[in-house]
């Protein structure tokens, strides 16, 4: 029997050519959290963020929700951005919020690559996808 299970689902939308909007959900036997955030594509800066705690373990946990606003202005392109997010959002707020933000950050380039590849395929269905992605740069 499974004794612990965690799922993370990260979705990315492009409301316009300058912004990527992430929705991240983390559900496991213990915690249930959600993050919505908007990031500027050109420099990776977090422009807007909100979080929701559905399941948590202590009465203090929801105090971490306002701490999320300290992520605004931080860039997913900065050197050591993951450590900064874990320190500022994770340690001072909630580690699980930080985990979702970091996973959204890990999806930043893959989402851009995926968007660009699908747009390129619309123009050229016979495109060499492997080669296209090898040549792709942010």
């Amino acid at each position, binding site marked *: 029997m499974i004794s612990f299970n965690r799922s993370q689902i990260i*979705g990315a939308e492009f*409301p316009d050519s300058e912004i990527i909007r992430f929705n991240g959900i983390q559900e496991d036997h*213990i915690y249930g959290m959600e993050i919505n955030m908007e990031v500027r594509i050109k420099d990776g800066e977090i422009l807007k963020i909100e979080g929701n705690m559905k399941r948590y373990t202590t009465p203090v946990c929801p105090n971490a929700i306002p701490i999320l606003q300290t992520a605004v202005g931080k860039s997913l392109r900065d050197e050591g951005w993951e450590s900064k997010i874990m320190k500022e959002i994770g340690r001072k707020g909630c580690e699980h919020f930080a985990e979702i933000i970091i996973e959204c950050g890990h999806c930043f380039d893959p989402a851009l690559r*995926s968007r660009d590849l699908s747009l390129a395929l619309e123009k050229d269905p016979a495109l060499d996808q492997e080669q296209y992605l090898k040549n792709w740069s942010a």
Partner: protein
Amino acid sequence: MIQRFLRNKVVEVEPRPDGTLEVSWRLTDDLLKAEVRTVVQLPDMEILEADAKLDRFLPQGGEVASELIKKIEGINIGGGLRKIVAGLLGGPDGCPILVTAILESANAVILHFTRPGLHLSESMTDPTELKEGFQFMLQTNPRLVRSCIAFQDDSPLMEGLNL
């Protein structure tokens, strides 16, 4: 609005009859499919076996992932793991996906042990009893102290503790 990109990740811990834990970590998104399986021996939490399979459009280090992951065999889950994993599986010749997979698998093993204690605390309705329960957890798991807002020095759960 239609999503342009979607990533699904699952990590599962399953106790086996021989007393080991099998951890299955899987990722699928528009560009990548990855599976990492580890077997962890208790009580020292040594990673006995590790296997990896990556598919679709391979990321950095993806071609050698199934060989690279073997470097993690024999490592114990515990203090300093982040640095050890980064050293063995990361870097310019490494594979960042494997680093993430191993760290998240190790975290899932820790949460496998955390879950029963939290189940017990759910049956506590008296706030004083609940606080004492959390304080016992902090005393027996000092790594939790100052790990998040609930366990910072100014948290009501830390009142009276000198940790």
